[in-house]
């Protein structure tokens, strides 16, 4: 027999190969660890030498000075919340801090004789109190500092670069790291200074002068200056080589940014608009010294170049080792943060794409917070001990959007639909029992929407009540508008004998669509209206919107701020030029209100206009407003100080307690 290559030899070869490969891999893994260690040692010794030599070269000297200043501060000040939190963590990460001193407002920024030399004379200055926790974690029983908090995302953020990241998950991470000049107060939704200690607004709305806090520093210790603000806008956002087109379009109203002095910056606007203040105060301030060392193309293609002055910082700023999608995002507390420091030492964000797997991961203690689906939310709460071990949170906040059925108020392909008549639209709303829809279709999660303004926002008119479910009144309205059953076949007709029929367009996806369409069709049939359903893919749906080629359609708007410009959706001028007034609703009262809202800078006055606008939209019912979708969250019971605010959740307030601290019920 000749000696042939058999299966046994093959297996042997494979085995030997596998052993060799694994030996090689383990050696390279060892090498990598060694390299990391060496790198750490080198950096440590660098820091040490810089510290001992007094630091002639920038960074080290700053560090030494900073530590000295911190020591001094600790010695001089009475024990105060901020120092306590930070100091605890530095000393022993698991130490239990005894919260004996009440949260005194930190007297920083020279509250006595305020320095007004930076301001334009004669214009009111809006002085800002330093940003504080709404609910200081140290006041909560069971407080402990330290630990890691893990949130499980449903999708991977594509990149974590400020202004280039466009998804909601990326924004959530960046919000913790990159700070802005001002933010919405979580409880009251007022715009309050973060990096800004004060600002001055032109009574005519054409400029805005901002004073930056003296103690604000980036996570590497360099101070935040006016030049950083100017650079962020002029050389980053407005630099056409940076792929920040979206931010560029929203901030397009900023004509110029001038550095007045080291800590004062002035924006000039092309026209007075109420959004100017919140948009320009909402920008992330980026460190010029960090980002300017990269070419625009490097920034465009980077995935994790993220540095700012917020309460957390990202590990690994080395451009060759930056975060890439697929890894967990890990943020560590920025101990140089000027503001209220989070008791948590690290935030971790991991991604689990499948709904069920996400819940299982959460149950397996692989994460501390998830966004459950509505059925998951209800099912879990029915478990006996769920509420004892978890926070089940459900609340409406400023980011809650609303869903609606939009009626075509203008012509579709040259022909008017029945919905051009306000009475018909009101009637349509009244034949749909929105409370029941929420109960049956959305598992009882949600509240009936009354109009375009988020109910938590001060823009919402509390006096507007949703139209009742009243088919009889609806029938009367239809009759008034000329629609009644003239030939006794159960279907409404108008004078010309045309039947009342329309097509409801929805974008495909999910079983909810099925339930909604069958409910709407059912209700229409009862009222004597023929309703046909058209399901289309999202991309076609978007085209239909642009072409205004539909009778009625269902979709939702989401919100990102308590107040946003209503013109794009509601003004009659947005019917032209592919604006989002795709229902072609033209209402003179609304138009004039929108124009006045946009030009009114006084908040109180503007809110009155908003309320009026809310009523006008309610009366005319261009949309049937269905449901405001609340946020749903599960948070582990051993996380303390979990509060639901109008602005969302404040992760920096959370702490990791040793035992369950939930007070069930939300």
């Amino acid at each position, binding site marked *: 027999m000749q000696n042939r290559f058999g299966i046994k030899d093959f297996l042997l070869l494979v085995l030997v190969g596998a052993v060799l490969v694994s030996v090689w891999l383990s050696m390279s893994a060892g090498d990598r660890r060694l390299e990391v260690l060496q790198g750490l040692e080198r950096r440590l010794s660098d820091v040490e030498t810089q510290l001992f030599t007094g630091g002639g070269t920038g960074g080290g000297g700053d560090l030494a000075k900073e530590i000295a200043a911190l020591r001094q501060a600790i010695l001089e000040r009475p024990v105060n919340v901020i120092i306590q939190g930070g100091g605890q963590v530095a000393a022993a990460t698991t130490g239990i801090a005894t919260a004996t001193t009440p949260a005194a407002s930190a007297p920083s920024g020279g509250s006595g004789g305020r320095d007004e030399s930076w301001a334009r004379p004669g214009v009111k200055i809006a002085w800002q109190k330093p940003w504080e926790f709404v609910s200081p974690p140290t006041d909560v029983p069971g407080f402990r500092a330290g630990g890691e908090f893990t949130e499980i995302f449903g999708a991977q953020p594509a990149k974590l670069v400020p202004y280039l990241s466009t998804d909601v998950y990326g924004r959530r991470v960046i919000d913790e790291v990159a700070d802005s000049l001002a933010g919405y107060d979580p409880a009251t939704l007022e715009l309050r200074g973060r990096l800004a200690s004060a600002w001055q607004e032109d009574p005519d709305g054409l400029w805005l002068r901002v004073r930056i806090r003296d103690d604000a520093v980036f996570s590497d210790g360099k101070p935040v200056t006016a030049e950083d603000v100017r650079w962020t806008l002029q050389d980053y956002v407005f*630099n056409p080589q940076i792929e920040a*087109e979206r931010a560029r379009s*929203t901030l397009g109203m900023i004509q110029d940014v001038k550095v007045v002095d080291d800590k004062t910056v002035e924006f000039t606007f092309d026209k007075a608009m109420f959004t100017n203040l919140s948009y320009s105060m909402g920008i992330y301030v980026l460190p010029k010294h960090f980002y300017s060392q990269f070419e625009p193309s490097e920034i465009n293609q980077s995935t994790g170049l993220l540095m700012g002055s917020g309460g957390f910082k990202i590990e690994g700023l080395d451009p060759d080792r930056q975060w890439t999608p697929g890894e967990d995002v890990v943020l560590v507390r920025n101990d140089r943060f000027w503001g209220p420091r989070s008791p948590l030492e690290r935030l971790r964000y991991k991604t689990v794409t499948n709904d069920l797997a996400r819940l299982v991961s959460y149950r397996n203690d692989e994460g501390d917070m998830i966004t459950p689906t509505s059925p998951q939310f209800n099912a879990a709460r029915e478990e006996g001990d769920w509420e004892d071990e978890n926070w089940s949170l459900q609340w409406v906040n400023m980011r809650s959007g609303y869903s609606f059925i939009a009626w075509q108020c203008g012509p579709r392909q040259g022909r008017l639909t029945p919905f051009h008549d306000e009475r018909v639209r009101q009637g349509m709303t009244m034949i749909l029992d929105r409370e029941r829809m929420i109960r049956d279709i959305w598992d009882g999660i949600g509240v009936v929407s009354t109009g375009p303004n988020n109910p938590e926002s001060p823009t919402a008119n509390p006096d507007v009540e949703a139209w009742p479910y009243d088919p009889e009144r609806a029938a009367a309205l239809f009759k008034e508008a000329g629609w009644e059953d003239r030939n006794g076949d159960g279907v409404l007709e108008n004078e010309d004998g045309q039947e009342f029929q329309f097509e409801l367009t929805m974008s495909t996806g999910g079983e909810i669509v099925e339930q909604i369409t069958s409910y709407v069709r059912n209700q229409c049939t009862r009222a004597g209206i023929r309703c046909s359903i058209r399901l289309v893919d999202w991309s076609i749906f978007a085209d239909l919107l642009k072409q205004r080629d539909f009778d009625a359609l269902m979709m939702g708007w989401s919100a990102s701020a308590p107040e946003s410009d209503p013109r794009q959706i509601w003004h009659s001028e947005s019917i032209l030029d592919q604006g989002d007034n795709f229902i072609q609703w033209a209402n003179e009262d609304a138009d004039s209100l929108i124009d006045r809202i946009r030009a009114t800078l006084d908040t109180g006055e503007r809110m009155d206009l908003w309320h009026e606008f809310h009523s006008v939209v309610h009366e005319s019912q261009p949309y049937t407003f269905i449901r405001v979708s609340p946020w749903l969250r599960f948070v582990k019971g051993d996380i303390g100080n979990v509060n639901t605010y109008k602005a969302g959740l404040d992760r920096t307030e959370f702490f990791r307690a040793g035992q369950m601290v939930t007070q069930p019920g939300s």
Partner: protein
Amino acid sequence: MAAYIARRLFVMIPTLIGITLLVFLLIALSPGGIGASLRVSGGEMEASKAAQLEAYLEDRYGLDDPVLVQYVRWLGRISPVKFGTRAQISPSGEIIRTPKALDGFFLSKDWFADLELGEEARARLATLPPPGPLLDGEQAVAEHRAASRDYMEARADYIAANQFLEEAVVRYARETGIADAVDAEGEPVEGVLTDHRPETAAPSWAPVQAAALATLEAYEAAVVARNRLQRAFDAKPYPEVGVPVLPGVLSLGPPDFGVAFSRGRPVVDLIAAALPVTILLNLIAIPVIYLVAIPTGMLAAVRRGGWWDIASGALFVALWSVPTVWAGVLAIGYLANEQYLGWFPVSGLHDKAAEDYLFLPTWGENGFAPGYLLDLLWHLVLPVTCLVYAGFAVLAKQTRAAMLDNLSADYVRTARAKGVPARTVILRHVFRNSLLPLITMFVSVFPAMLAGSVVIERIFSIPGMGSLIIEAINLRDRELILANTLMIAFVNLFALLLADILYAFADPRVSYD
């Protein structure tokens, strides 16, 4: 043989072009078209701003060009043979090409052919920096950097002005009632408008005139900036890419797959991140399928009609008919859920602390530490199980059928008759001869290795090729889809060639000479 292989390789080029063109046309003609994801309106942005944003993005990614031009441009970039001036490469890896050409603005050849700029505008244009001298070294780099920013700014201004002009024309056309001048999406139709002479007396003509003047000025400014950039580029601030064949006309260079606009990252990076994950999964799954299915099929053929044949057949077909989505969800719900068994991890490929693990498992002071390798394998159990279980049936049945064909052949009876041991008959004679259909099946493995499984990757949160491709298709990401298509088509064609060569080795009757 060599001639045959060469011929096949040569035919591959038009085939690849055909495949990518077909896929490209499919994306381009689908609703929404290329880059549909970029055109999502926010509802908060003013319409004119949203349109402007769209125009910027279209310009950045060349989406405003005709479909075929886009395809040819893509082909030019990925082709190793390049025409024209060679591109340059900056130290950060950015490929720098000749500055983009400037198209004339809307109706510039027609309505506004003899538009003249005013004195003031001329004076403003005169202040713009003209093309500088040919610099070299650091200065050339600095000049190129400044000039390219200037040009991009000027180009953006020009695009915005052009957009504004189009809007003014739309209003004018609506007001004067030119039929069909505005399409269903509210965009002006140039062909219809050129046939009209503008009525300069109409009240909405003045804004059109003003917008056209502004656009002309922006255009002239962009031309100046472009000339300056062209000069800066000609100074060759960076090293050139590739090898010249005919200088200035023809050169060889590496293919450039471009940037995936749905994620703003180079396509090569995205594939390099996703591909190893998919290959790893398949490298484990495919051998498992073969090692289980082929022996089972052989045994089933040898004991045809026996309990093994029937039981394995029934089991495999049963497994084959279980949907992966369902199996995956069950696996997570029961095997990974600590409320039930909790044996396996739910998602991902590594433990969160895996970066700090040693590679191999160790027994130390703190007891057993699994190490990186074991951790990875442990994470792979559920996804690999879901990948393989449905694959057994086809392969086992295929093996069984091929074996049965040969078992009843004359040469087998002869071999048995002359006293060759049954083992040898089956392994040496029958199995070798049954390999032919298995080879056909085997080559299809290679493209499958790269493609990944959308369902399994979604369920187990594995960032592999499947999710990458499906997302690319959903977002109509031209670059990413084409690169994927090209890669899979290439591997497919190559696998087919390999199969044909293997035939010749497995079966002496097959010859290509």
